[in-house]
């Protein structure tokens, strides 16, 4: 079934009861109202779908059309490897020596003007500091399309845990075509003295190949080394995947209890034509 799902009485509905539409395969959402024979009141607005992952939608901005992607990216790894610092550096452009658990916020948002027609919004999900024993909820992993696993080059034990994190990730989330979520390994704190395998680039390449990482980078949140590059590399992977698996994502009639005023306004506007 196509996502328009007219023959069923199930639709994508957000918290306000507004019917929104998930992206069609061509990425264009028809901005027209359809009438649902059964309920007689459904409007498929040019709505914003709350749900994360590979949604992209077309936004009318000053006449021109831009493609937007919203991607959920996980940042996982052992305690104190610099996950929060990396996110801070990447999103807020600052670094602090003081390690703090992350409290009160699910993710940091980074907006990239990828190219002339594409905007990429990255939600970087920190592990909420204290879910630190590797027991992540599925809610955290759900619908992620990319992942950074971070270890600390000065502590070999954090590297040993990388495999455990990778298998936890793969067991709890996969892309809609059942392939693993692209994952980049970050050897953080590379401005400091290194310990173990990371000193041998060939072996690291080998390791990544063997364990299914799409690549690895030496990074330093402190000195701002390679973080943008690593992110760019991962986004490239995601965009490639997105093209391949797009067709699969479609037929999910979902409801999020999220409210979204924009789409509701849209709905109010449209209300007249189909009630």
């Amino acid at each position, binding site marked *: *079934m*196509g996502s*328009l*799902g*007219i*023959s*069923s*009485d*199930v639709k994508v*509905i957000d*918290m*306000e*009861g*507004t019917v929104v539409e998930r992206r069609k395969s061509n990425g264009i959402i028809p901005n027209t109202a359809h*009438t649902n*024979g*059964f*309920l007689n*009141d459904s409007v498929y607005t040019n709505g*914003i779908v*709350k749900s994360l992952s590979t949604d992209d939608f077309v936004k009318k901005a000053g006449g021109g059309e831009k493609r937007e992607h919203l991607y959920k990216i996980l940042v996982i790894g052992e*305690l104190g490897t610099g996950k929060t610092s990396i996110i*801070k550096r990447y999103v807020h452009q*600052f670094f*602090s020596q*003081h390690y*703090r658990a*992350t*409290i*009160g*916020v*699910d993710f*940091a*948002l980074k907006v990239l003007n990828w190219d002339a027609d594409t905007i990429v*919004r990255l939600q970087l999900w920190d592990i*909420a*500091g*204290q879910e*630190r*024993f590797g*027991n992540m*909820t*599925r*809610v*955290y992993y759900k619908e992620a399309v990319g992942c950074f696993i971070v270890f600390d080059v000065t502590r070999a034990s954090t590297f040993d845990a990388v495999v455990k994190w990778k298998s936890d990730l793969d067991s709890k989330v*996969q892309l809609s075509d*059942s392939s693993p979520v692209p994952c980049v390994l970050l050897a953080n704190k590379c401005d400091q003295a290194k310990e173990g395998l990371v000193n041998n680039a060939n072996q690291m390449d080998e390791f990544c190949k063997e364990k299914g990482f799409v690549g690895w980078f030496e990074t330093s949140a402190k000195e701002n080394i390679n973080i943008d590059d690593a992110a760019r590399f991962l986004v490239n992977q995601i965009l490639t995947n997105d093209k391949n698996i797009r067709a699969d994502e479609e*037929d999910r*009639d*979902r*409801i*999020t*209890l*999220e*409210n*979204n*005023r*924009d789409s509701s306004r849209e*709905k109010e506007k449209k*209300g007249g034509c189909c009630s």
Partner: protein
Amino acid sequence: MADDLPNKFDVIVIGTGMPESILAAAFSRIGQTVLHIDRNDYYSGQWASFNLEGIEKWQKQVNGEEGLVHPEVDLPSLLKDGEKTQILGLMDNSYSNVKIVFSAKNSDDVGIHEGIGDHEENISKSSENKADKVNIDKDQADNKTKEEGIGKEWLEKPDRELKEEGNKENQDKDCDYTSSTETGDTPVKGESTDTSEEQHTECEASSASTEKEDVEVDSCGTETKMTECEKWTEDKLRREWRRFNLDLAPRLLYCGGKMVELLITSDIAKYCEFKTVTRMLTLLKGKLEKVPCSRADVFSSKEVSMLDKRMLMKFLTFCAEYDKHPEDYQDFADKPYLEYLEHKKLSGNVRHFVQHSIAMVTDKATTAEGLQKTQKFLMSLGRYGNTAFLWPLYGSGEMPQSFCRMSAVFGGTYCLRMTASSIIVDSDNRCTGIINTEGQRIDCRWLIMEQSYAPEGYLHITSQRQLCRCILVTDKSILPTQDSNQLSLLQLPDPNNPDYPTIIMELPSTAMACPQGLYVVHLTKEIPLSHSNPEEALKYAVSSLFAEEGEHSSEKPSILWSLYFTQTFCDNSVPSDSKPDNVIITSGPGVERDLDNTVTEAQGIFENLMPEEEFLPRPPNPEDIIYIDEEETTANQNAENQSDFSSEKTDQSEGKVHRTDQSEGKVHKTDQSDSDVTSEQAENKTAHSEEKHSDSTEQEKSGKSLEQCLTGDEEKNEQKNINIPQESEDKHDKET
């Protein structure tokens, strides 16, 4: 790995089930330090959802394999003067009679049901089944006679074509692979208003599936997408193990219920997605029918005569506001609901609809209970479309996890596969902490534990009950239609045992319960404690709806995989005197099919312990938090020097948001208001939405008009729903 666990928390919560998780989130949210642990290596405890591999592991665990053990500790060194310990059991003994069967055979033993050595379990099962095997025609005849037994009136109606269309189409198509009920049907059906686009996709789908049939013949299916016309084998099911989400305790959410409300107000809704229950079914004369619930349904229903329609409409109209007319039902309040329905002159069919599909009560239910449940159902209709129920995608085991995530985001510490080996109690019989299964002493002010963890002496259990559960994986819907994504709910009374109806829930793959082309069916039935055979107890329901093993029915779905188990739960208990006051015991999943009672329980506990605090207030928007480099502030350093334990407490009084001080550097509120939108840009919107909010609450208080309840009309109900200020989209805009 867990050796850096702090030694002190405000609250230790043991068990990651629903009420415990709600409480963990509520305590973390107000700045209490929370340690949340669970004996299992998965979340949600007795409320968990498993994939195919996970549920097999669970079976082993229930059977006592791979359990935790008590650590060896030097007790005196851990205890202070006057303290003693209470040892806890480490196992959950609620489950028994667990049995998993792969009825789908591997390709080499398809058709040879007996005689292949490496599937012992299957063999014993199939021979067992041979004995009970009933010819399908005879079976249906049986059902008919049974149905006649309970409601003669149903027979007065001529046998109509009912909802068989789906089946007919399939027969007409005469597909070799008889299970092709799901797609492939030409979409141009009388009433459908399909767009050409949709037809297009469907055509594509069906042509794709024909192509694949050919492939299938020689390759025996490594492709995951081709599901319709393909045989499912054990190997194939196992290959798709990750795509299953099988619930130990499947729970729905009333659209207008407390859980939905809580998810919205606490913003935990952002972690979950739902699918609507698209149809309520009922079994009449051995045939499944869709129950008309909304006004639109009632009018379009072919199963209800004009007179009945009027009666039903009138009755439902009354039910929606029954509490305003006590004189109408007072005499019946304590009498059975059924009697009252008769008194209201509803016909047999209509009574059946109201009792089993709308109120979903047993024959024993009183009128007061029946009316209350009928009203709750009606009040839930229309909010998210033409349905009263929501199903959490990926299974209801997601719900506790959503609350755990919220707790973790607000600083809760999570550690699975760890529980309390013993509770430490001081001379005043107050709990001062626990010794965990790794031998570490951890102090706490409150200890919250799920019932199955609690020491026997802490509770006088006054009554116990037992549920039998069955999870089936099947190859087609119990009532196939053109739309293969129907999520169905059905209460099936057992004519031999009318007090204990079976609740049946059928989940399509789009509920993220299973791979495409399959269905997961949950059957739940209460049985007396004396019974111990869940298969026996559910036999009537299973044989009414599903094909017997080995039989390839073109109408009934075949069972590919099944799990049966029984679960005892405590219905009523009184805390004993030996229970320390600061130990709180929460209940596991009971017989309810929704989560509203659990919310009530958790909220009650929280408000009792924290009378001054708000229960799960909305968290601050990320844009309210201003990041300042910590090095610039000295306040932080101070905070750092304090122990976790005490600094949390000082923060508490200042309100929730300041709690963030501890983490991200400085967090400044730009507004005194607690958690609502504070940035100036957003202010207008907030005002705007608050206005709406008050409007709508008024509306809510005065009760929804029947029109709204019954028509499933979102247009009107929408107003009620547009009320919680939050701008997910605005958020993005601002960030840009």
